[in-house]
C-alpha cells in the first residue's frame, strides 16, 4: 500500500461523506461540541486560577486576618490598644491595624464614594507599596494626627480623570475634612485582606479615626507569622492574647475572628480546581456521546452501503482495505469535528473575553482536545469498520 493508496482512500472516504453531507454534519456536531468544550473548560479553569492568584497576590500564606465576628451581637473591642499584647508573641512578625469604611470623597475635579483606610505607617512596608508620585506617611504624621491622604491607583484615575495625575499637595475632602494628597500608589491588582489597595485612600490611623471614620469604621488586624510552620501556634497565641486584653473570662465567647489566608487561598484554589475537573468531565462526556453518535452513524452507513461493500469485495478489495476505508471516514469526521471545534472554542474565548469573563487561552488545551477527540473518534469508529470488513461478500451483494 503506497502513499498514493492512502491519498485515493482519503478521496473515496471524502466522497462517501459528501454524498451524505447533512448527516455527516450532524454526526460531526457532537465532536465539535466536545472538542471545543475541552478547550474552553481548560481556558476557564486557567482564568479562574489566575484570578485567584491575582486576588491573593498581595497576601502571604503566613498572613492572619483578625476582625470582628460576623454576628454583631456585641461591638468588637478590637483596637490598636491590643497591639502591644500581640507584638510580644515571639512568632508574630508584624501587626498592621486597619480601620476602613466608605466615605464621600470630593476633589477640585469630582466627587465619588471610596473606601478610606486608616492604618499605621508600617502598612507600606508590609504591603510592599511602590509609588508613582510622592510616598507614604511616617510615624510623625501618625502621632500628630496629620490630615494626609495616599491614593490608590484606581482612585486617583477616577477622581482626576487620567492615570497618574500630578496632584501631590492638592486638597482632597474625605467626608467633611480636608486632607492633603501625599502620594499615589502604583497599580497593584488584587486585594490585601479585606481591602483592595487600588480602590482605597490611606490616611494615618489616628487622623482616619478622629476626622473621618470614628466608630463607623470596620476594624481589622493584618498579622504576619514569622513562618508558615508556626501559623497554628501563632493563631492560638493571638487568641489567648486577645482574650486577655479584652478581659474575656472562661466560657465567654470570642469577640474576634481569626482567619489564616493560607487556608483561604488553598481552599479557593482547590474549589477552582474542583470546578475545572467538573467542567472537564462534562467535556469528556460530551465527547463520548459524540463518539457514540459517530459509531451509530457509521453502523447505519455500513448497513446502508452493504451492497457497495459486497461490490468492492467482489472486485478484489481485501478486508483490511474495507476496514481502512470506514476507519478513514471516522477519522475524517473526527478531524473536521476537531478543527471546527477549535474554531468554535477560539470564537467563544474571544466572545467571553469581550464580555469580561475571566478566560485565558491555554495552548496545550488544543493538544489535550486533539488526543481525547481522536482517541474517542477512532475508538468508536473501529467497531463499525470491523463489521464492514467482516461482511460476507455474497450476502452483501444480495443485500437490498
Amino acid at each position: 500500500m503506497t502513499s498514493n493508496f492512502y491519498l485515493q482512500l482519503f478521496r473515496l472516504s471524502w466522497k462517501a461523506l459528501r454524498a451524505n453531507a447533512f448527516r455527516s454534519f450532524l454526526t460531526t456536531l457532537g465532536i465539535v461540541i466536545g472538542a471545543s468544550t475541552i478547550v474552553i473548560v481548560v481556558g476557564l479553569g486557567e482564568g479562574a486560577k489566575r484570578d485567584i492568584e491575582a486576588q491573593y497576590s498581595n497576601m502571604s500564606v503566613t498572613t492572619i486576618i483578625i476582625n470582628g465576628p460576623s454576628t454583631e451581637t456585641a461591638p468588637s473591642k478590637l483596637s490598636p490598644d491590643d497591639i502591644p499584647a500581640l507584638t510580644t508573641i515571639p512568632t508574630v512578625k508584624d501587626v498592621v491595624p486597619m480601620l476602613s469604611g466608605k466615605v464621600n470623597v470630593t476633589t477640585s475635579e469630582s466627587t465619588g464614594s471610596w473606601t478610606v483606610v486608616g492604618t499605621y505607617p508600617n502598612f507600606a512596608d508590609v504591603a510592599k507599596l511602590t509609588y508613582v508620585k510622592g510616598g507614604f506617611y511616617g510615624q510623625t504624621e501618625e502621632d500628630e494626627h496629620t490630615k494626609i491622604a495616599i491614593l490608590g491607583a484606581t482612585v486617583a484615575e477616577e477622581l482626576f480623570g487620567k492615570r497618574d495625575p500630578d496632584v501631590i499637595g492638592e486638597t482632597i475632602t474625605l467626608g467633611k475634612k480636608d486632607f492633603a494628597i501625599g502620594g499615589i500608589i502604583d497599580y497593584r491588582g488584587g486585594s490585601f485582606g479585606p481591602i483592595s489597595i487600588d480602590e482605597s485612600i490611606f490616611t494615618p490611623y489616628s487622623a482616619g479615626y478622629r476626622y473621618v471614620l470614628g466608630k463607623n469604621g470596620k476594624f481589622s488586624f493584618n498579622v504576619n507569622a514569622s513562618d508558615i510552620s508556626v501559623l497554628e501556634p501563632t493563631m492560638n497565641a493571638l487568641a489567648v492574647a486577645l482574650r486577655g486584653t479584652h478581659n474575656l473570662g472562661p466560657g465567654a465567647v470570642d469577640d474576634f475572628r481569626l482567619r489564616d489566608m493560607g487556608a483561604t487561598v488553598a481552599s479557593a484554589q482547590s474549589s477552582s480546581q474542583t470546578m475545572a475537573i467538573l467542567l472537564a468531565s462534562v467535556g469528556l462526556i460530551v465527547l463520548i456521546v459524540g463518539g457514540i453518535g459517530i459509531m451509530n452513524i457509521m453502523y447505519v452507513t455500513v448497513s446502508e452501503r452493504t451492497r457497495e461493500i459486497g461490490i468492492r469485495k467482489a472486485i478484489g478489495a481485501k478486508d483490511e482495505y474495507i476496514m481502512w476505508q470506514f476507519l478513514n471516514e471516522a477519522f475524517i469526521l473526527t478531524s473536521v469535528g476537531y478543527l471546527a471545534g477549535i474554531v468554535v472554542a477560539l470564537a467563544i474565548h474571544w466572545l467571553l473575553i469581550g464580555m469580561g469573563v475571566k478566560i485565558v487561552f491555554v495552548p496545550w488545551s488544543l493538544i489535550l482536545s486533539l488526543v481525547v477527540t481522536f482517541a474517542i473518534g477512532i475508538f468508536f469508529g473501529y467497531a463499525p469498520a470491523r463489521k464492514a470488513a467482516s461482511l460476507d461478500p455474497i450476502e452483501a451483494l444480495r443485500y437490498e
Partner: protein
Amino acid sequence: MIKLKDITKSYYIKDVEYPILKGIDLEVKSGEFVALMGPSGSGKSTLLNIIGALDKPTKGQYWINEQAVATLDSGKLAEIRNTYIGFIFQNFQLIPTLSTFENVLLPSFYAGQEQRDKAKELLTRVGMADRLENKPNELSGGQRQRVAIARALINNPELILADEPTGNLDSKNGAEIMQLILSLQKKDKKTILMVTHDPQIAKLANRIVHLKDGVVVKAIKNDK
C-alpha cells in the same frame, strides 16, 4: 485454465445439512466459453460464486492455472478475484456514488495502481466514452452493463464470470451486450463462464453444462 474436482457445498441451519452442490467435476480450458444452465435452486449461482473465489466449497478441490484455490485465506481470495477474475452481474453492481470512470478504475486501485488511460480506452471500446462523469443512476440498463464490462476488464483478467448478464435487459440491448461478451472471447482470448436461462444465448457458447439438484446432468458441445 480452471479445474474443479468433487466440489461440494452445503449450508447448515441448526445442524441440519442442506446440500447445494453434490460433487461437481468440471474443467474449462483457456479461451473456452461455457454456459451454465439449470432451473432455480440447481446450484449454478453457488457454483459460479465458488469459481469466482467469493465462496468456499465445503469439500473438494479447485484450481485456477494449477493454483489450488479452495484452501486460500480471504486475503488471497481477494487477490485472485482482483487479478484473475472479472465479474459481470445481472444487476450490474456499480457503486452508485462513483462516476462511470471511477467505477471502472476501482479494481485497478485495489490492485495498487490506477489504470486511468486503460479505463478510458475500455470505456471507449464499450461505447461509453462520452459518459465518463455520469453516475450509474443517470445511465440506462444497457449502458450500465457496458460500464460493468469495462470494469471487469480493467485488470486484464483471464477469466470472465457472468451471472445472467442480459437478464435485466431488453432484447436489443441484450444482443448488443452479448456481442461485447463474445468479442471478449474472440478478440481478447478470455475464458468465459456464464450462467443463463436463455437457450438462444447458451447456444453461443462452446459448451453448455446443465445442472440439476447440485449435480451436472449433461454437457453439450456446440459446434460453431
